[in-house]
């Protein structure tokens, strides 16, 4: 009796063996799910409610990393403030730096805002460039391809499934992008300011100019001197929209809005960070709607 139970349990685990995929952020995780389908179990490590630079390194993340077969990271320094000690303490050689099971998506993305020189005197500048590329819906396909290639390397048995999933997803997404780009052609917002340089990839894609940030330097809280400069810039350049992310304080943005008549647009930075942004389509649609309204 005992033996048969053990055997069925063993058998069950063998039959339903899924690839454990951990993704540091929810947009990456959602794309991994599209490509992996039923062959993967996707776990998101960082909550999209909070600042992606400073995810709380809860010990529960260690047990998630311990069992991962593939860890997908955003890279370009975004996880530098929380992931390295977790990786060292998770004792999982599969996802160690240099192993096949660590996929750094930033290695596949053409980086923008790459600084010529870096110093922390300029605030929290990433030497590799701006890491917030997931706000651009066109980069979704680059991410999907990178994930497909790596999943095939790790789980050759299901290569066919991953290839088919990528083809289907690509078709669907290209169609979505066509409509999305057409909608963005109609978007009246052409000048913005933002809190942090979170949306540069999106803005560059659709030729929207960012005239400054609410934080004086990346990672530094607003100062009154800088806020006055920004108010003057908004007035001079006739900027109509202030892009506010969900995790920074919102007081400064509203203060600036009061002084200038610009509108504060709450923009999600990651899938699920606002209500009804739980799918890739709804996430990018929300960015568009809140920006262009």
């Amino acid at each position, binding site marked *: 009796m005992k033996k048969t139970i053990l055997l069925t349990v063993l058998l069950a685990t063998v039959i339903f063996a899924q690839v454990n995929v951990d993704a540091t952020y929810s947009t990456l995780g959602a794309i991994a799910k599209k490509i992996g389908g039923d062959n993967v179990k996707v776990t998101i490590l960082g*909550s999209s*409610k*909070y*600042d992606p630079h*400073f995810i*709380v*390194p*809860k*010990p*529960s993340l*260690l*047990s998630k990393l*311990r*069992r991962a077969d593939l860890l997908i990271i955003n890279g370009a320094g975004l996880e*530098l*403030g*929380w*992931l*390295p*000690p977790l990786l*060292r*303490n*998770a*004792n*999982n*050689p599969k996802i*160690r*730096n*240099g192993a096949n099971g660590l996929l750094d998506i930033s290695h596949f993305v053409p980086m923008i805002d790459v600084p010529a020189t870096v110093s*922390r005197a300029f*605030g*929290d500048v990433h030497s590799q460039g701006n890491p917030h590329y997931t706000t651009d819906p066109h980069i979704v396909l680059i991410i999907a391809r990178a994930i497909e290639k790596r999943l095939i390397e790790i789980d050759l048995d299901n290569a066919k499934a991953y290839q088919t999933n990528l083809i289907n997803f690509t078709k669907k997404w290209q169609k979505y992008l066509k409509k999305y780009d057409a909608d963005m052609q109609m978007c009246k917002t052409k000048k913005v300011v933002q809190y942090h340089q979170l949306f540069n990839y999106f803005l560059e894609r659709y030729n929207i100019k960012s005239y400054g940030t609410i934080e004086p330097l990346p*990672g*530094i*809280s607003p100062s009154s001197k800088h806020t006055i400069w920004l108010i003057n810039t908004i007035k001079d350049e006739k900027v109509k929209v202030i892009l506010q992310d969900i*995790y*920074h*304080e919102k007081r400064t943005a509203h203060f600036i809005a009061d002084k200038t008549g610009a509108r504060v647009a709450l923009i999600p930075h990651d899938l699920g960070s606002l209500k009804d942004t739980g799918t890739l389509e709804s996430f990018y649609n929300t960015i568009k709607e809140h920006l262009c309204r």
Partner: protein
Amino acid sequence: MKKSTLLSLLVVSSVFADAKLDLLQKQLNKQQMQIYALETKNTNQSASFSQNAYLPAIALILNMSAVARDVNNTAYEDLSIPGFIDYNPTNKNSKAELPFNKSRGFNLNYAEVAMHSAVDPYFDAFAIFHLHPHEFEIEEAYVQTRSLPYALRIKAGKFKSNFGRMNFKHQHSWHFDAQPIIYKALFGPDAISDAGIQLQWIAPTDTYIMTGIEALQGTNERSFGDKEINNLYVSYLKSSIDIGEDLSILGGISLAHGKNLTTHTTDVYGVDLTMREQLGAYSSLIWQSEYLQRNKKIDETTNKQGGFYTELIYRINRNYYCGVHYDAITKNDIDLQRYSANHINTDNLNRYLVKIDYKPFSMSRLRLSYSYDRTKVIAGERKNINTVMLSLNIAAGAHGAHNY
């Protein structure tokens, strides 16, 4: 005549042809050089034998303070914590070690140089050097495996033990600049930090369960210190659960078993509990507590001593933190006759701390703290010490993130 004309013409044309060929040859050479230059454009241009790309990550940490205290510096150096640190003027070794914020006035506590690097696919190496004004100290220097199977990891070298909650943390990452009294009393400022070997394992469960064992030299003379052979063994079990997305709880039990200077057994038991509630992107509440008890056998008697600390840290926003901390010695079953004979009260040994941190950026921290310390006997009298301190800590360079 005709012949000679023809000949001269031939000669001329051949001379001209040669000149043309030369020109072509030159052009060809030039193009070949250009092709070669293009072909080698993306090849290695670095200095031969350069290994600069493999340099370890290096961080510099500076810790300094300005202190106001109602005890003068000479008297403070001769402090006692009854039953734990018993200062005896005839014995230099009975002095408390006070590496941090000892002096009224200004202190440069240390310049810490921390380095880490992957050695090869199999090992990571770490070294943390503490440079005190008149002393160089290897705080930690160890290697750690990268690729053991079954979620196992071995660490070897000199390192801070994973005993309890606070033991492995470096001074600059403590919530308060002052060490919890029970740690200071049982182990001194470096806590359990020794040469040895550590094995840790994480269970393949949804709930975080980690266990580890360590064999250490046991040089800490406050609790251990038998010199004849390595004498200290530490083991622990830690577990953590999340309640919802924002509340995480970490608990642990620890045991350190060693031999003390009298070659008898010392056992230290520890339990710890940390709860952390995330209130917002830059706001959180942390409640951390720990109880330690030591059973130290000397000759025929076993002295049982213990105490706890509990602290509450509130991160207000991106830049400000505040916190309160309480320490108490709750068990002190040891011969305290030297104090009672001089009518010194040794009950109610406890301490209160409050602080405010201002962090303009994640790499720098200014901390204002007040301490009311009721654990000390100074110059033959129980003395309640008031301390106000402003400390500055910076981490420059490749300083990595901290653990939970």
